[in-house]
């Protein structure tokens, strides 16, 4: 077969891969067909990689094979992490994807120079800037999620000015390079400034905003791959990058809506330093607390219970105890469901995978709107490690920083129980009036231990 005919054949493999990628995402729409989607994606990827390995342009396989082995060696353990570590794994994989796209763009430049056209230079510069800033930004996000770096927003005066200047500098260098692609000295400076901008961009963002940040970085990683497709004239990359980019973008929009904030506000308006003043005014208010025995008695007497999990459940690794609670209550004939706020946890859908891992059936997991329509008929709303997403101030208090954010209306339930370590305000430092309601019982303690105590009480009681 001539090399031209081979090329044509390979092109068909790529077209099949693109179709399979779209099917993969389509089948992901329902948990019933989702695994078929993964298989479609795998076949598509295998076809594309297989076809590429047959490409007659390749004349040396040694480094390819070594790199593939290293990649598999890193990828398999990263695929086996615990579900609580999925947010940081995801951030790390955005970093890898962006690193890869940036490296290829950089290599293209150095291989092509001095024959790089201005048009190509513009494409390469943009691609390498987005790839580089996504790489460092994602590493910082992963570091924060892994708690290697402080989760609190790190801010200093003039921060936004410094960050935007860095971005502006990178873009100016990109323009200079586009005017004269042979100014090779500028290229590494541009990469360096873009890398620094990635760090500056994510460092000031707090842990509670991570769902939006991860989604945005996902989007950037996708668009950098699509831009790389333009640089290399590779249609598979353009399609895969556009799919990934639009997916990340949609998720970012959903996350922003769920927090009633704009992109600019998330990226440049570090959360969590406001509100120090109103805390003093509320200290005198009283709260009612309850013991595990009392909580167990109330739960056993309920007919409908809605559990609202949050990041605190993930931190305390309480999801398996929650599953035991679900089992024992279900056995007693109590209807137990879970209300999931879109930004609960550290990434989109985080609570769902944690509860699924604990073997809680997914038809028990309600989206926010469904949960809110059930809450008025609910006897007990049990809040485990969630705070801001249940704060009624978001509905009523126009001075609250979270005013306007859609919340789970747990205060509509007959009784509210909140498992919490102490009365200290939540991550965003916003006081929660829910805790002072007459119908609210505070259950002070570690989420895992407290739920365990309730379970013991409930299963002990059934034997008498």
């Amino acid at each position: 077969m001539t090399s031209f005919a081979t090329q044509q054949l390979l092109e068909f493999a790529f077209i099949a891969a693109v179709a399979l990628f779209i099917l993969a995402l389509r089948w992901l729409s329902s948990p019933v067909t989702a695994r078929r989607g993964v298989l479609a994606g795998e076949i598509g990827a295998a076809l594309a990689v297989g076809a590429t390995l047959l490409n007659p342009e390749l004349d040396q396989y040694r480094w390819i094979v070594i790199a593939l082995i290293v990649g598999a060696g890193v990828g398999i353990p990263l695929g086996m992490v615990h579900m609580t570590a999925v947010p940081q794994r995801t951030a790390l994989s955005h970093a890898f994807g962006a690193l890869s796209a940036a490296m290829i763009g950089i290599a293209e430049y150095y291989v092509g120079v001095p024959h790089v056209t201005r048009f190509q230079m513009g494409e390469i510069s943009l691609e390498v800037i987005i790839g580089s800033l996504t790489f460092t930004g994602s590493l910082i996000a992963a570091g924060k999620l892994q708690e290697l770096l402080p989760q609190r927003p790190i801010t200093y005066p003039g921060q936004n000015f410094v960050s935007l200047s860095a971005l502006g500098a990178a873009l100016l260098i990109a323009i200079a390079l586009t005017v004269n692609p042979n100014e090779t000295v500028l290229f590494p400076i541009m990469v360096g400034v873009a890398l620094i901008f990635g760090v500056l961009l994510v460092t000031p963002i707090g842990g509670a905003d991570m769902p939006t940040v991860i989604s945005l970085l996902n989007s950037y990683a996708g668009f950098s791959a699509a831009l790389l497709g333009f640089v290399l004239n590779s249609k598979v990359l353009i399609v895969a990058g556009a799919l990934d980019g639009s997916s990340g973008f949609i998720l970012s929009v959903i996350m922003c809506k769920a927090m009633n904030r704009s992109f600019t506000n998330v990226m440049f308006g570090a959360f969590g330093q406001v509100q120090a003043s109103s805390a003093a005014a509320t200290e005198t208010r009283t709260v009612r607390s309850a013991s595990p025995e009392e909580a167990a008695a109330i739960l056993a007497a309920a007919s409908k219970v809605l559990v609202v999990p949050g990041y605190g459940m993930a931190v305390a690794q309480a999801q398996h105890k929650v599953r035991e609670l679900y089992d024992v209550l279900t056995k007693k004939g109590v209807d137990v469901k879970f209300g999931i706020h879109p930004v609960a946890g550290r990434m989109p859908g985080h609570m769902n995978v944690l509860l699924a891992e604990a073997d809680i059936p997914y038809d028990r997991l309600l989206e926010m709107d469904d949960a809110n329509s059930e809450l008025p008929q609910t006897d007990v709303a049990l809040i485990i490690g969630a705070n801001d997403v249940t704060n009624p101030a978001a509905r009523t208090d126009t001075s609250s920083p979270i005013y306007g954010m859609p919340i789970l209306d747990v205060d509509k339930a007959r009784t509210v129980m909140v498992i919490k370590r102490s009365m200290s305000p939540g991550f965003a430092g916003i006081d929660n009036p829910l805790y002072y309601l007459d119908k609210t019982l505070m259950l002070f303690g570690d989420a895992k231990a407290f739920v365990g105590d309730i379970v013991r009480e409930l299963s002990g009681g059934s034997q008498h």
Partner: protein
Amino acid sequence: MPADFISNLYLFILAGFVGFEVIKRVSPLLHTPLMSLTNALDAIVVIAAIIITGRHETVLSTTLGAIAVAASFSNMVGGFFITDRMLRMFKTGRPQK
């Protein structure tokens, strides 16, 4: 402006809209697997990395290419693997067929 650029731009716009329509339908229940799956699909940049590495033009391009192969292939392997692991965990309360 190269002719390829225009046809690529058409493709990008269309793929973006297809992505938007398809992904809009994904249930929030599966947003975490969605992100890991799109990440695995995005790792298809590995094919560009393979070409750069295999052409063996300069030491620099081979080195950068090999790093890119390793980074994106780890995303591909790990991304598909963890997505499937997560999806296996999603079970209904009703007896399975």
